[in-house]
């Protein structure tokens, strides 16, 4: 029965090998996996079957340090309110759990302006959108936290734009992720720094990767042009008592983005009196009262609330005064 028994044990061995595995990832088989190899021989000697196993050799898979960084923004992020959030993804493409040091550099060659990085945040609630007060902002020296092999993390770089930036100016911010264990030329080894005390080896990415996020400054400008037409009581245009002055204010908004709460006010010149019910906006009459419509006129001046106004839009306001 020797032969039968050895055959059974060979099958059992096969089963145990098949079970003793770790999942393979993009970064390869998990660090710390033990690869065992045992060969079995069966044979006959003078018709008597025999079988023998070899010694089992075991090698441990060391940790490969690799990372990729990509920008998740579809294009340049508008920074029209003076701040912006750039979104990146960090993926551990190595084969062991690893944390990454994150560095955002706003000084990129070719920038029209350099933004100021005010923080790097982790997408704590995993919704892909920066939620102030919810997503954790990394403190000085903090790293990404440990990422499992193949795991990705969404990271936000929070920036502000400096003053003096022109509309449409472009800027880039470079986010770098460095393996905390170490970086270097591919093949660089960190003895004992890997999983289960194995070595950690720098992979093809150098255990460091970076990606650029783009910003475009949206600077909105309001341009006001005021003109006056005079109609005197005698059919001329002399500024004499009783003459009517029609003031025209053209408010033109230029630039990328929009401006909020745009309000145009104008005081009547000394020696003139407002001519009731002459206030208009874009050709439509506004009541003088402070009511639901956008405008009002009182004893000293007019006020028209244009509200949120996007670049490229212009409005025309007119009103009449009479020279006293």
């Amino acid at each position, binding site marked *: *029965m*020797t*032969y*039968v028994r050895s055959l059974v044990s*060979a*099958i059992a*061995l*096969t089963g145990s*090998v*098949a079970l*003793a*595995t*770790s999942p*393979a990832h993009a*970064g*390869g*088989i998990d660090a710390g*996996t033990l*690869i*065992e*190899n*045992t*060969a*079995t*021989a*069966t*044979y*006959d*000697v*003078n*018709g*008597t*079957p*025999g*079988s*023998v*196993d*070899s*010694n*089992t*050799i075991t*090698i*441990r*898979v*060391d*940790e*490969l340090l690799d990372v990729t960084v990509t920008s998740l923004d579809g294009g340049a992020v508008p920074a029209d309110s003076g701040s912006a959030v750039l979104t990146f993804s960090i993926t551990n493409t190595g*084969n062991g759990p690893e944390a990454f040091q994150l560095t955002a550099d706003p000084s990129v060659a070719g920038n029209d302006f350099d933004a100021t990085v005010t923080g790097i945040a982790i997408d704590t609630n995993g919704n892909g959108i920066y939620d102030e007060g919810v997503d954790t902002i990394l403190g000085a020296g903090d790293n990404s936290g440990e990422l499992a092999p193949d795991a990705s993390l969404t990271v936000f770089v929070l920036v502000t734009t400096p003053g003096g930036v022109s509309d449409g100016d472009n800027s880039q911010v470079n986010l770098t992720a460095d393996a905390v264990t170490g970086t270097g030329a591919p093949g660089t*080894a960190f003895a004992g720094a890997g999983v289960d005390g194995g*070595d950690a*080896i720098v*992979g093809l990415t150098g255990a460091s990767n970076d990606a650029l996020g783009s910003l475009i400054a949206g600077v909105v400008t309001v341009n006001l042009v005021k003109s006056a037409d005079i109609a005197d009581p005698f059919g001329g245009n002399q500024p004499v008592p009783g003459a009517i002055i029609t003031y025209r204010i053209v408010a033109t908004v230029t630039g990328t983005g929009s401006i909020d709460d745009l309000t145009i006010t104008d005081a009547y010149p000394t020696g003139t009196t407002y001519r009731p019910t002459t206030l208009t906006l874009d050709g439509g009459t506004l009541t003088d009262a402070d009511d639901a419509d956008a405008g009002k006129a009182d004893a000293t001046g007019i006020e028209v609330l244009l509200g949120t106004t996007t670049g490229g839009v212009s409005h025309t306001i007119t009103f009449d005064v009479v020279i006293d």
Partner: protein
Amino acid sequence: MKLKTFHRAATAFGTACLLLATAPAVTAQDQIVLDSDVKVHKTTVDANGVEKTEMVKPEVVVPGDRLTFATLYHNTGAEPATNFVVTNPLHKAVSLASDADPALIVSVDGGKTWGRLANLTVTGEGGTSRAAGHLDVTHIRWTLPVVEPGARGRLEYPAIIR
């Protein structure tokens, strides 16, 4: 060394089973010594930019590394060993290297069926069949008709860490 492979292993097993009933209880267990060995290929570039590959002890291995697994056999007895079959399961963390000898007899189904890789198929999900590839190999087997007393040899296969 040059290896010869056999395709009548099943016949050999059948013969062994028939002989089992009548063979005298002579111990054959100590007749053969098997010794397993593994080396990793490390490529270095010297100062002149010339690449050199060495086979070294696998002290540091990472996914993608190339290993050579070897089994050294030695017939230490006084009698020839016949129907000599060495079976080597592959750990799932490694795959047979794509430049392995196409004449190797392998299994892609856990050792149930055997053949040259080019002649084997695997059944995927949904029951569709496709040609087997190097990643599918689960076992390698060498068959030698006889190992004479005192004879020794080396059986090896190249593997890549997945």
